């Protein structure tokens, strides 16, 4: 099942990349995708954890929300980079991560890193050490809106 | 014209990142500069494709986005798990020791 999914994903990717739809070249694509799937299976690197995660319907909404956060944070950090009078006040703290699965914690940590102004430095099971550029950034993370949203995505079936 | 504006910004970012890569002072600064330079190069190639009217160049940009990631991770693995040795400028930056916390 997973292998079929992987094959389809690879083949769609191949189709989009190639842009040629003649029989011979399509055949090459089919064969090379099959070879890739076979190698992935031999090396036992077919993903076991994240697949169910991608099927959650709330995930795209979370991504949209995250995109908005990223844009907001971008302009804030960019201002601090350029404007001569602006000051930064970096701090390090431990943020709680209440997600149940490791994929959830990883998603949270990556979201923190993806938002400029905060970077996750180390992760444990239920805690993330975060480096924030400003106290405001730290407050946003500690307010736990992002974490709660990930928990909500995680919770649904 | 608009591609030229984007190209100018990308080139400026390239120059600044290059300065950071040359200045250091720690190895990690250089790795960060390398990683960012890779991202900027991806953008530069994408913009160049449009600037020259041949967007097919995007394939190279895509390849770069992949290669750059692999290269960065390889360097970091080497730094963290490889033979770090006694020489080199890692961890000996002037602002790492006393200035911390």
């Amino acid at each position, binding site marked *: 099942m997973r292998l079929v999914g992987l094959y389809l994903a690879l083949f769609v990717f191949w189709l989009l*990349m190639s842009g040629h739809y003649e029989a011979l070249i399509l055949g090459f694509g089919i064969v090379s995708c099959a070879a890739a799937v076979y190698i992935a299976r031999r090396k036992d690197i077919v993903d076991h954890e994240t697949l169910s995660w991608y099927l959650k319907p709330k995930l795209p909404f979370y991504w949209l929300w995250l995109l908005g956060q990223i844009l907001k944070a971008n302009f804030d950090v960019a201002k*601090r980079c350029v404007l001569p009078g602006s000051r930064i006040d970096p701090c390090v703290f431990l943020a709680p991560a209440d997600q149940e699965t490791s994929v959830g914690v990883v998603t949270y940590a990556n979201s923190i*890193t993806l938002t400029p102004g905060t970077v996750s*430095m180390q992760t444990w099971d239920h805690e993330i050490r975060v480096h924030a550029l400003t106290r405001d950034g730290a407050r946003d993370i500690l307010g736990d809106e992002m974490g709660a949203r990930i928990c909500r995505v995680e919770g649904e079936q | 014209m*608009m591609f030229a504006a984007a190209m100018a910004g990308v080139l400026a970012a390239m120059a*600044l990142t290059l300065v*950071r890569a040359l200045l250091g002072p720690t190895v990690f600064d250089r790795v960060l500069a390398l*990683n960012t330079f890779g991202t900027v190069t991806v953008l530069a190639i994408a913009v160049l494709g449009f600037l020259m009217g041949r967007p097919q160049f995007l394939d190279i940009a895509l390849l770069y986005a992949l290669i750059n990631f692999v290269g960065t991770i390889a360097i970091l693995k080497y730094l963290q798990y490889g033979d770090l040795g006694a020489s080199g400028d890692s961890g000996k930056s002037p602002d790492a020791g006393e200035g911390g916390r």
Partner: protein
Amino acid sequence: MALAVDIASWACLVAGALLCFAGGVGMIRFPDVYARSHAAGVIDTGGALFILLGLALQAGFTLVTVKLGLIGLLLFFTSPTATHALVKGALAGGLNPLCHQLTADETAALADKASP
């Protein structure tokens, strides 16, 4: 319609170029690796997003747009991993962040202020 698209892509490209430049300036100005990684994040996310968006608007509904989207997706998946690995490596390499380490009390106080 074409004019609107042109204006939109002008705005996106200029915003992307400015963000790239700002990130570059931050890479120079900020005091240590950890702070600089935030500036790099501006280039990795905002700069890339806006420039790719501006290019996609110019390309219209073609394979080119799909490729631009794939590049963006790839950058958004790989860049946090690379940054995290870098920062973690710097921490393991004994590089202390040049900043204030919040105590548990201060963290709690910030959390209180954040949740109304």
